[in-house]
């Protein structure tokens, strides 16, 4: 996790915020996905969240559901995702956090996954349906492999749970901006400043905010409040529009450049 922590520290010292970019591994194809990740890293993403597709993504809205289905149709498995990480590592040093649901990882084996992910060059992992309550075995496996663990906080989280999640996250705390699934929205939730204040009161970890952030203006607003701004569905939609063509990488990179401007100190 040192690469992820170092990266966030450097940004913090400059007064910048991290732009955290979510992409679905294997969408539209495994080969194309590696190109897209590299292009997004070169365009200024500070952290890459790389989704491993799951058949039943119950925290995701239509954009990421469809991306996962495209990836699965293209034959994307856990080993394929780890191979994408390896390919990206040949050219890019940007921290990579893998994001998925528990079952594919359980099926692969928790210890084996933690070891293989770290070996491939991933820095951490987020398992959306694994809260700290059930995470003991996973944390031991991740710690043994030197893989970071990130857990989610939500607007419904109590102060006790914010402290619990803060204590168990390595790297950053992933704060879900709204009650709901992933997906681009027109407006930011009005109670976001209050949510961030509640989180800050209980933990001094860097806080990344995601779910429903898609435009440079939204990124700029959230960057005033958080240490990192997470953009997912908007990027995934750009990839979907381009289809299986080299345009996907350049279109994603262009969006990332416009988003990144919002996280730099003016």
């Amino acid at each position, binding site marked *: 996790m040192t690469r992820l922590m170092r990266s966030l520290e450097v940004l913090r010292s400059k007064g910048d915020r991290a732009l955290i970019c979510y992409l679905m591994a294997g969408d539209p194809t495994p080969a194309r996905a590696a190109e897209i990740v590299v292009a997004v890293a070169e365009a200024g993403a500070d952290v890459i969240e790389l989704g491993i597709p799951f058949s039943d993504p119950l925290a995701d809205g239509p954009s990421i559901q469809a991306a996962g289905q495209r990836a699965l149709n293209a034959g994307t498995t856990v080993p394929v995702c780890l191979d994408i990480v390896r390919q990206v590592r040949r050219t890019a040093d940007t921290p990579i956090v893998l994001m998925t649901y528990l*079952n594919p990882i359980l099926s692969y084996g928790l210890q084996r996954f933690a070891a293989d992910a770290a070996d491939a060059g991933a820095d951490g992992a987020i398992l959306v349906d694994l809260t700290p309550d059930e995470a003991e075995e996973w944390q031991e496996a991740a710690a043994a492999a030197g893989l970071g663990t990130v857990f989610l906080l939500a607007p419904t989280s109590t102060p006790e749970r914010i402290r619990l999640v803060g204590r168990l996250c390595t790297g950053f705390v992933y704060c879900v901006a709204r009650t709901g*699934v992933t997906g681009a929205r027109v407006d930011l939730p009005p109670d976001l400043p209050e949510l961030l204040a509640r989180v800050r009161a209980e933990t001094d970890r860097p806080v990344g905010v995601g779910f429903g952030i898609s435009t440079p203006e939204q990124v700029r607003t959230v960057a005033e409040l958080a240490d990192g701004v997470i953009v997912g569905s908007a990027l995934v939609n750009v990839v979907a529009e381009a289809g299986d063509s080299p345009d996907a990488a350049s279109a994603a990179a262009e969006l990332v450049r416009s988003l990144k401007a919002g996280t730099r100190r003016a």
Partner: protein
Amino acid sequence: MPDALMPDARGHFGAFGGRYVPETLVPALDELLATYLACREDAAFLARLADIQRDYVGRPTPLYHARRLGDKVGCDVYLKREDLCHTGAHKINNALGQALVAKRMGKPRVIAETGAGQHGVATATACALLDLRCDVYMGEEDIRRQALNVHRMHLLGARVLPVTSGTRTLKDATNEAMRDWVANVRDTHYIVGSVVGPHPFPMIVRDFQSIIGREARAQFSEAMGRLPSVVTACVGGGSNAMGMFHAFVPDAGVRLVGVEAAGRGVETGEHCATLSVGRPGVLHGSRSYLLQDGDGQVLPSHSISAGLDYPGVGPEHSHMKETGRAEYVSVTDDEALVGFQMLSRTEGIIPALESSHAIANLAALAPTVPSGGSVLLCLSGRGDKDMETAVSALGLGNALNGGQR
């Protein structure tokens, strides 16, 4: 309630169960657990529930000695008549209980998932009775094959929201209901329809359904002065089976047999025999047996009965399989259709296709029943809703052709 029958504090039944959900839902599950535990100790709540069960649902449901069916299959058979519950299936036991809990939590809106539509109808009914808003998620494929129940839900004032993702059946309806709950958790209660989902749902649904087995055990003992040799029920998610089995778990001499749907045959891959051929995994909030491929992706399931068409199963069933307390077998679509016709013709009772799976297994069970012993079967629902599916599968076709012998 004996401790051996309770999950641990975090909802584990042995290696199964627990709570695997997005963080957003954790406080709602804590609130539900606290409210439910308070309800369970509250005399006024229990009295209200008992009144509704008696005067509205029609409990206790009869225990019926099915002599002609018994002669046909070769063993003594008793049916617990959950098909005679208001709305036509056992689902109402849980829906009313949870709707009362939702009312107590002050949540004005209820959502539910449904496969066959029985849980959707039961939830819509409970919401009409208790003045709650109701939205039911149902797969497009199930809307097609269970149109009658869709009309019933509409008439009861519920909205039916079609689900077009995945296989368009119960699994996908459950995904959509979960997504809705994550978004609207502050004013919405999700009435999970089976003994599945994150803790405390498997425990709550089981407790509200366990009235089936408590009544049946008392009725059987009173009539016969002994207990049945075998207690059996169909298993999809497993709520009627768990409700029936639970009172008999401490009775070591009573065999518990769950009957899963083998669809077109377990060897074809088109089935939902989760406990028979699945392996443990995590879906919809708990750890349990699951139909999944080698990469941990959930497999599409198939059954002629929409209510069993689900790739998961309740965690307590997984635990009972693991400990050997219950046995699980499976019967195919075709066998279930034979059971469907057999009960109709021997007893004048048209069963739901779900319950027909348990009927169909009686012939295989009969030789294993000791002489003088009896089988107690949970007839979980009635078959009106399945007329179209059954008529088309059996090739009965034209209503004017006089039927077949």
